[in-house]
């Protein structure tokens, strides 16, 4: 079976262009984080700065103990959150994928409704703090907003409906398998690509979230639970605050964090994802092929 290489060449060219467009700014980010701030103020960020400096990173590393623990928290929260999220979402989506289920249309509507309408911070906070008491617990980082969302449910539901042959499931049912068996033995293994997808998207969402930590954890009693983005975001916010409120009679402005610090902060947040991502890529590759392979 000889294939003309044309499509492959086109594919490579296209992917190369897109990848380069993605990579170059990232390189600029790395270089910017190592640029001397005074030089950057005068000459702007460029690929070839004449003055380098690791000051931005040193500034962050001053808070090293916090950052080390914050990384740990982020990893824990992300792993637990993603695991729970995949489980809940997939179970739910499997239910929804059954078009004959009574009420499936209503439930689908209710799911999508949540994508559109939101009660807002005040009532959400009230509910989580007063009714469910998650303040200053680790659940405050896992539950609000991120554990399951309508978008992921729909992605998985569609995938199950469109990519898994119903005949396979019917055959198993006739053989006497329970729905749970079908779910675990057939649906899940065949859905690995989409599960990996929502796992990735949810993982990134957890990793990047700083709002849950900010609202539900107090600095004193919950500060040890801060994730990396919360810590970094507070540094960012302090920069913003100083820019907007320059009245120095009230705020002492010494040891001002600068623009390059923001770049270093971004790097500190991104690098772990970049390092971890390749390990999970194999799940995006073709899933288990069909064609009569029995589990």
């Amino acid at each position, binding site marked *: 079976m000889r294939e003309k290489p044309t499509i492959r060449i086109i594919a490579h060219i296209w992917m190369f262009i897109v990848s380069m467009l993605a990579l170059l700014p990232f390189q600029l980010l790395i270089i910017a984080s190592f640029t001397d*701030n*005074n*030089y950057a*103020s*005068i000459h702007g960020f460029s690929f070839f700065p004449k003055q380098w400096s690791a000051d931005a990173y040193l500034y962050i590393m*001053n*808070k090293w103990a*916090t950052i080390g623990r914050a990384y740990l928290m982020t990893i824990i929260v992300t792993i637990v959150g993603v695991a729970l999220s995949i*489980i809940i979402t997939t179970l739910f989506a499997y239910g929804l994928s059954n078009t004959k289920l009574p009420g499936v249309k209503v439930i689908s509507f209710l799911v999508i409704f949540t994508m559109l309408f939101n009660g807002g911070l*005040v009532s959400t*906070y*009230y509910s989580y*703090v*007063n009714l*469910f*008491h*998650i*303040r*200053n*617990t680790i*659940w405050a980082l896992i*539950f609000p907003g991120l554990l399951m969302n309508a978008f992921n449910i729909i992605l998985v539901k569609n995938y199950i409906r469109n990519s898994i042959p119903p005949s396979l499931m019917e055959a198993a049912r006739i053989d006497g398998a*329970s729905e*749970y*068996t079908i*779910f*675990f033995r057939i649906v899940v293994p065949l859905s690995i690509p989409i599960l990996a997808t929502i796992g990735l998207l949810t993982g990134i969402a957890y990793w990047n979230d700083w709002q849950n930590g*900010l*609202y539900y954890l107090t*600095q*004193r*009693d*919950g*500060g*040890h*639970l801060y994730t990396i983005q919360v*810590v970094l975001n*507070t*540094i960012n*916010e*302090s*920069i*913003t*605050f*100083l*820019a907007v*409120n*320059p*009245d*120095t*009679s*009230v*705020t*002492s*402005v*010494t*040891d*001002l964090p*600068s*623009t390059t610090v923001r770049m270093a902060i971004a790097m500190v947040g991104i690098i772990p994802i970049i390092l971890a991502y390749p390990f999970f890529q194999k799940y995006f590759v073709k899933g288990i092929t069909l064609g009569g392979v029995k589990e």
Partner: protein
Amino acid sequence: MKKILALILISSMMAVMLTGCGNNNATSTDKSTEVQGSESQSANENGEESSEKVAVENGEIYEVIMQWPSYGDSPPGLADVEDAINEIIEAEIGVRLKLEPVLVTNLLNETALKVSSGEKLDLCLALNTGVGPYVNNGSIIPLDTLAADYGKDIMEICGNSLAGGYYNKILYGIPCAYINGEEYGYAARTDLLEKYGYEIDPDTYYDLEFMEELFATVKAGEGENFFMVAGGANSDMAFESSTPYDKLGATKASGVLPLWKSWEDTEIVNLFASDYYAAYAQRMYDWAQKRYLSSDMATTSESRVGLVASGNYLGCFAGNISGGKMAEADYSNQTGMDMTLIRLVEPYSAMNMFQNVLWCIPATCENPEKTMQFFNYLYIDNRISNLLAYGIEGVSYVVVERGEDNSVIALPEGFTIDNLPYYSRFGVYGNRLNQHVKSPGTLTSLKELRDWSENITRKSPALGYCFVSDSVSAEYSAVTAVIVQYQAIISAGGANPEEQLPRFLADLEAAGINKVIEENQRQLDKWLADQ
């Protein structure tokens, strides 16, 4: 079998979800908590954070929870400072202080959320927002009677500046006691001033013409890519630093009193329609053409001091530069270079100056009387405010020169701001004119400042009046949006004002600025009549 597995799975998840509810108290790092009585502050909540409802030891001690503005970190020495304070106040007034660090940009949100869910909070800080937003969403309580009964010393010490806490004629917030007015100016690099032969007299007040002349000279010498005015985005600092005016407790969106023209006139004008502003806009455009201002001024991401520190700028318009030598030293510290302050506006008093730091009592305070009592004590006993402002002697600072009430202090050997056990970046506590002085200040610095403050004679005729925007909030918001759209470009001289200003004014009118100003005038006239 799979069924069972599934059921186990699901139930364990439920268990997980539910145990989350009860896990609350385990992580509290409170020391002992002796909370006076009441479990239910308001009718609609059934839980508080870290609520160890422990029986009180001696039923007299009330815990005051006070916000502590921070940059996101909780200093390790915070508990020690609390202990030192509590040693004093528990005995004196039967109050126990608990500090709650809050990210400074999140103060408003944090207070709102706490009040909305019924969590106890006794003292909250309104920093640079005024009390307006807090009153509008009902987070704080009026302080008139409380201050009269329990805060007599505060009222005396704060004097004029107490005016900043009024909203709709009711007292809602208490400022920290500091100076009675402000003066404004420009911070220039000393080395460049010397290079071009400029001697700045600290007692003279210069003007923008002088600045222009200075700029011309330095620019000619330093060249094309060297700039005269470091500006961050959205800062109208040149205007703020050179013009006396009164925003009447609100913003430019509701009109101003033109103090540059008259100190008695109480007619509110649309600042942007005034001749003064037109001249100012023209001057900025001119400066941009002459490249005194960088063409990136409106969009740069760096702060003013950061830009000056980079070495490519003569200096920046510094806004409020009250504080004489100490302010100068402060600026020099920030930029890392020796700076000289050029005074442009003689000191005066206006409402907005006293709205920067306001302490309020939220609706979920359980014992406002005791809280006010504590707060009053903060102003008269400078041991407490020194502890809050600087930490514990010998640990977070060392005494350089000991004085009677207060001393000159400095950082301990080998410490920087980052590794101090306790460091407060915000001067917001108590009577700031009765606290330690940081070197290179001297023992007489505060007295000088006090004298200077008492000698401020120029006062806005509307001092004490604050505009309430409720009835025109839609127009007020729309006008604010228009100002955001045009102001930055005009202050950076980025567009020809002959084209920009007419458009700006037309948009302001369309958004309803006249309606807002009318309302403002109506309220002001009523307030004046009531005086």
